[in-house]
């Protein structure tokens, strides 16, 4: 299985367009929107700190969601998944390799946002906070990696790209990764606070505020992870039976 992970990684790192979108693009947006001074309402965090977590989360989301769903759908239809089933690779090996390679790309996209924030916007945190932030955002990205796999097995052909885009932008914007959800009308805030992306960013912000992450956020993320991973596993088995 390691050789497949290695090859998936080689391929991901070779794809410049994908690397730009998942590694550079979040940092670029960070620089564009973190210009205001002062604090974000109700958080006690400076704009730069607030946006840094949003963009690190957004970058990780991009890395794990965008590449995989489309590729899985394509490779399923093209017959590569069938070909792999004629090797010693265990059935779930393909999905694990996809998830692992996505996770490896998501890590630099998180770190690059942090580096840019520290170097350009003078964001300063304690050492433990940097480590905890990186760990929490990276670990949280697995929730969305599972979602990417589920979409890859759910949709096919031309449908997979629009579905991925809708889910990706919907989760990013409504979850408050692009602008604080406190700027939404209150009915929308009520919906947004149940989204996994909202809980995801809240995780990072709690660490910035030197607090332990809220139990509710962790519960939401765990629930969504179980939902997405369970859905992916179910769709995967269904696909295997009809392949």
């Amino acid at each position, binding site marked *: 299985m390691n*050789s*497949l992970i290695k*090859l998936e990684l*080689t*391929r991901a790192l*070779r*794809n410049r367009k994908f690397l730009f979108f998942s590694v550079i693009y979040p940092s670029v947006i960070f620089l564009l929107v973190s210009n205001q001074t002062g604090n974000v309402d109700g958080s006690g965090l400076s704009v730069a700190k607030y946006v840094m977590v949003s963009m690190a989360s957004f970058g990780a989301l991009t890395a794990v969601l965008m590449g995989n769903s489309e590729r899985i759908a*394509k*490779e399923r*239809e*093209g*017959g*590569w*998944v*069938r*070909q792999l*089933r*004629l*090797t*010693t*690779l265990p059935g779930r090996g393909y999905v694990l390799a996809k998830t692992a390679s996505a996770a490896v790309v998501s890590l630099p996209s998180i770190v690059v946002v942090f580096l840019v924030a520290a170097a350009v916007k003078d964001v300063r945190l304690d050492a433990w906070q940097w480590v905890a932030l990186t760990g929490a955002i990276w670990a949280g990205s697995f929730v969305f990696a599972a979602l990417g796999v589920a979409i890859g097995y759910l949709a096919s052909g031309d449908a997979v790209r629009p579905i991925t885009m809708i889910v990706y932008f919907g989760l990013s914007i409504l979850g408050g990764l692009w602008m604080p959800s406190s700027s939404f009308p209150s009915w929308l805030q009520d919906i947004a606070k149940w989204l996994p992306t909202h809980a995801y960013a809240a995780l990072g912000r709690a660490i910035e505020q030197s607090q332990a992450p809220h139990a509710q956020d962790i519960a939401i993320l765990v629930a969504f992870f179980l939902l997405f991973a369970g859905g992916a596993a179910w769709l995967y088995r269904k696909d295997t*039976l009809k*392949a």
Partner: protein
Amino acid sequence: MTTTATATTPVVGFDQVSKTYGSVRAVDGLSLALHPGETVALLGPNGAGKSTTLDLLLGLRNADSGTVRVFGTSPREAIVNGRVGAMLQSGGLMDEVTVAELVKLACDLHPKPYKVADVLARASLTQIADRKVNKLSGGQAQRVRFALATAGDSDLIVLDEPTTGMDVSARQAFWATMREQADQGRTVLFATHYLEEADAIADRVLVLHRGRLLADGTAAEIKAKAGARRVSFDLEGEIDEAPLRNLPFLTSITVSKSGSAAGSSQTIRIQSTDADATVHALYGLGVYPRNLEVAGLGLEQAFVAITAAEEARQS
């Protein structure tokens, strides 16, 4: 006479295997056994159930009923033990990686792998080892699939219509490589709808039609059965049909009147398993056939002819 041969496990054993899609019986009570070292062609027209049979053999699908054993184990176990290498019909490949990288992956995943360089050389891929997989021509991609199927020392090689999309010279080169594999004692099973291909390569031919095994024999035997020809001609005037019906090697005959102003004439259509002998005997009847035509039957029609013959024998 006592035999010293132990009850050898067949390479592949199908026992009363059926597979249905909706209302279509793709494979219908199929039983067969392949033995070590055989080169076997699975011959049949499109839709005969060849691909489904191979899918069942490779564990890509599960049978509705019956059992499939490969080297005495489940198909999946045989693959995990590295005993089976397979090339699927237009099987997908991983994009955006090089030929060498993909072949290396196949070698890494095989329990008894060959050296990457050797696999590339055998599939004539050395020259294009650094090319991206998605930039290959159809024939080159087919050679990559072949390389994936032969990345390790497997005992059984399964090929689903491997020469689809290859030109004549590529086809010949492909079968030359394949014969090498067979000469090393491997069992080779390939699906094809070309009778000529089965004839040239296989030492045993299984004919599949509508999911059932129609014939099982040497290529020559199948050729004699499936090599039926159609003979058609016109006869003028009133004719006696009885001697026509008794022509040798005849499997079917239809007589249709085609009356014209000049007088009545009949068009006779005959299917024969040995057209030369049938026509020779026809002249022996002392008639004067006009517009004589002898044509080969397509494989599909040949199968219908065999089926009809089988059914006639059974009733």
